[in-house]
């Protein structure tokens, strides 16, 4: 069974540009979560999508947005990139089951120059 896949692995952008990160969940998982791990910090919750809808978002500005497609894959878009957006962005998926654990992808390392 394929795990959560993310692309690209690395992404280099300059300040002010837009970045698009992609995630494919495990087959059968309907929920997709996005987390940001900045250097030296823990994983910060960004966004949660389920059945194509945004269910909740963390304490991030509106320039962080995304969507979930009918096949449950997801995109994270970061507009007007700032230097502090440089981080590892992790996607995770799960089934809609109480206390079901998250399965993470390997992440996209975004570098903003």
């Amino acid at each position, binding site marked *: 069974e394929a795990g*959560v896949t993310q692309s690209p692995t690395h992404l280099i952008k300059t300040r002010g540009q837009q970045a698009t990160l992609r995630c494919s969940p495990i087959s059968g998982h309907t*929920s997709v*979560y996005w*987390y940001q791990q900045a250097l*030296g*910090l*823990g*994983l*910060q*919750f960004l966004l*949660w999508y*389920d059945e194509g809808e945004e*269910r*909740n978002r963390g304490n991030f500005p509106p320039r962080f947005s995304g969507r979930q497609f009918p096949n449950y894959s997801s995109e994270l878009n970061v507009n007007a990139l700032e230097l502090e957006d440089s981080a590892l962005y*992790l996607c*995770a998926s*799960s089934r809609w089951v*109480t*206390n*079901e*654990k*998250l*399965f*993470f*992808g*390997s*992440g996209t390392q975004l570098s903003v120059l």
Partner: protein
Amino acid sequence: DQQVKQNSPSLSVQEGRISILNCDYTNSMFDYFLWYKKYPAEGPTFLISISSIKDKNEDGRFTVFLNKSAKHLSLHIVPSQPGDSAVYFCAAPLPSGSARQLTFGSGTQLTVLP
């Protein structure tokens, strides 16, 4: 405001000895806790969990202890092996969100020395 805290950024242990990783939390509404392990260039993987109705959960070499009165949990690895060298995160589901909307600690880098 970090609701789950790991105050030790790093820990070094000799192979075969016990590793103890600590985690404190501030929200008394948390009722479920998880530990994840992360190797470089990989996503975190689930290790072990504990419900607040228990004070101990064991899975092979890994045991998690929960002290609700102190709002403290710890992960014990016995015996430690070099392959256990990784970053360990404790996490808890946010009570107001999805059960999988986890809040994570900042992680502890465990190094097991051969």
